[in-house]
């Protein structure tokens, strides 16, 4: 049913991803789908990595780890943004079509009053992506 799953991940907050990652791994295994873990990084040093190259390596290692844990075929795709706080949704939407994914699985917080004026990343992706989107509450 699904051939390629895109899983946006925030390496700085891996603890919040547990449910979504498990869901991704299990579904990929079930449908025998390939998973691409997508991470967005900055050009400036961040808490995760000093440089975009280092971030890319960390993401690849993370994908490899997930792939081995669930027995699935997985890869990492790191994308660089000048200002992730405002650009992350657009970058992820672009990645959906560029990676040719047919399902997006991502973690999102439980909505609060602010989501009416300022939709969450998960909400925005679900609204605009051309493929199916599964939002996993943390």
């Amino acid at each position, binding site marked *: 049913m699904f051939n390629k799953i895109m899983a946006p991940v925030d390496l*700085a907050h*891996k603890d919040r991803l547990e449910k979504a990652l498990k869901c991704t791994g299990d579904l990929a295994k079930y449908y025998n789908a390939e998973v691409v873990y997508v991470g967005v990084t*900055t*050009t*400036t*040093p*961040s*808490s995760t990595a*000093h*440089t975009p*190259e*280092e971030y890319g*390596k*960390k993401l690849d*290692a*993370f994908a*490899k*780890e997930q792939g*081995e844990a669930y027995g699935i075929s997985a890869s990492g795709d790191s994308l660089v943004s*000048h*200002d*992730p*706080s*405002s*650009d992350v949704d657009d970058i992820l939407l672009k990645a959906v079509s560029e990676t040719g994914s047919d399902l997006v699985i991502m973690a999102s917080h439980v909505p*609060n*009053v*602010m989501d009416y004026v*300022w939709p969450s990343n998960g909400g925005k992706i679900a609204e605009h992506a051309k493929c199916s989107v599964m939002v996993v509450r943390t």
Partner: protein
Amino acid sequence: MADETTNQGIPEPEGTSDIIQTDYQIGQDNIETKIGPFGLDIHNPVFLISGLSIVAFVFYALALPEQASGLFDWLFSAVTKGFDWFFLGAANIFVLFCLLLIVTPYGSVRLGGTDATPDYSYIGWFAMLFAAGMGIGLLFFGVSEPMSHFSSSLGGTSMEEGARTDWAPLGAAGGDQAAAQRLGMAATIFHWGLHPWAIYAVVALALALFSYNKGLPLTLRSAFYPIFGDRVWGWTGHIIDTLAVFATLFGLATSLGFGAEQTASGLTYLFGSGDAAEGTRSFLGIAYGNSEESGVENNPLLLVILISAITAVALVSVIRGLDGGVKVLSEINMGLAALLLLFVFFVGGPIFLITLFFDSIWAYLTNIFALSNPVGREDVNFSQGWTSFYWAWWISWSPFVGMFIARVSRGRTVREFVTCVLIIPTIVCVLWMTVFGGTALNQVVSDGYTGAQDAALELKLFYMLDQLPLATITSVIGIVLVIVFFVTSSDSGSLVIDTITAGGKVDAPVAQRVFWCIFEGAVAIVLLIGGGLASLQSAVISTGLPFTLVLLVMCYAIWRGLASEKRA
């Protein structure tokens, strides 16, 4: 799977840059919390100390206005007059240091590592250089400053008790119009040319180098790593960062306040109705622009509306982010400014202006040594009241502008960076001052029109444009430029403050930059209505003194840092 590829044992990048190995992890001192529905990720304690000390200063300026203005004015005068030699000497060092970087092999080091590619095209990059740091000043002083120096030079020197009482630069040019014009242009370009841009370049280069090549957080304290080592993550660094936030926020708030006054005057001049002398002058029914003699008070409501509007646009811009907001506005503004420049150039007399352009550059180059001489100056009013004041002002702005320039300069080589931040902006400034100042001077010298000369500072541009064709259209472009330059200062400033107070993280929640943007507008409104804008501006310029030391240290740090980098 090999054991070393767990999350902790991630391989380091392959030697394209010389990462500083430190145990400090970016964001380790940050507090991640939620206030109501807003997520926060702020540096402890820089965010809190900066915010609280700013509130405390505002209260002090409002509660004890006379004491505050007395204290800050004294400080300002002591700093710019007592340390004029220090400012002038240090600024010369910055220029020489930058020129040295262009010619030494260090120039081929690339910011971001040997394989990095530029984040922004030249157009976007230049637009943002001007939008943050200087655009607004060019609009206000482009007409007025050449004129001031021309008049004072023409007036010649005057002595009282062995000291010069005139404000003319160097030996003045009493009675000689052509010489006064040359000296006036040279002095103006001196204040807007190599020296201010060298100040910005030093800060920007230090931050870019230590962030992109050394892997330290994008915040001011990182440039001090070669000197203080891991102590920069403690109170030494907290103080440096807090001082930077303080200078940036008050610098922005005071310019926003004064800018609103100037914009209001411009709007009332262009579109208002009634008579200033009778006290019936108003814009949109709000009394404004009335002369003091009329006894009618101007209504601050117009200023509050303007600051709120500028802040609202800046808010949209910061929410849309660096590429979708700040860059777009900067490019629009650069296009408009270029349009206005070309228009004034063609109707103001292209041949006269081209000649003046080369004359002015020549006058600048032949006078630069005398003008930048830090000791034994006879023209004390000029060297202390103008030059020293300007240098302190540029330096107090340098944490903000430097950090913003660093943010958009990844991927350039040091040589390219210094050339583009030092030489090209200087040429643009010469061009701007020649076209606007030269046209206004020509109106006085050739046409005998003294409208621009006699007008208030904020209206000089409009009186000058008034003598040219299509004055209504160009004046509207002028007002729009003023407003958008304020917006681009405000939004880039909010991004910078947000990054510093998030411990160098550029991906902190958007709510934080929204907070700083609104806070800045609120401080401007409170100070404008309660008084205290001028005294806090004095306080901001006084921060130029400690920052001059900071900048000198940065030169040393840059040199040390470049030495260990691989050259492309």
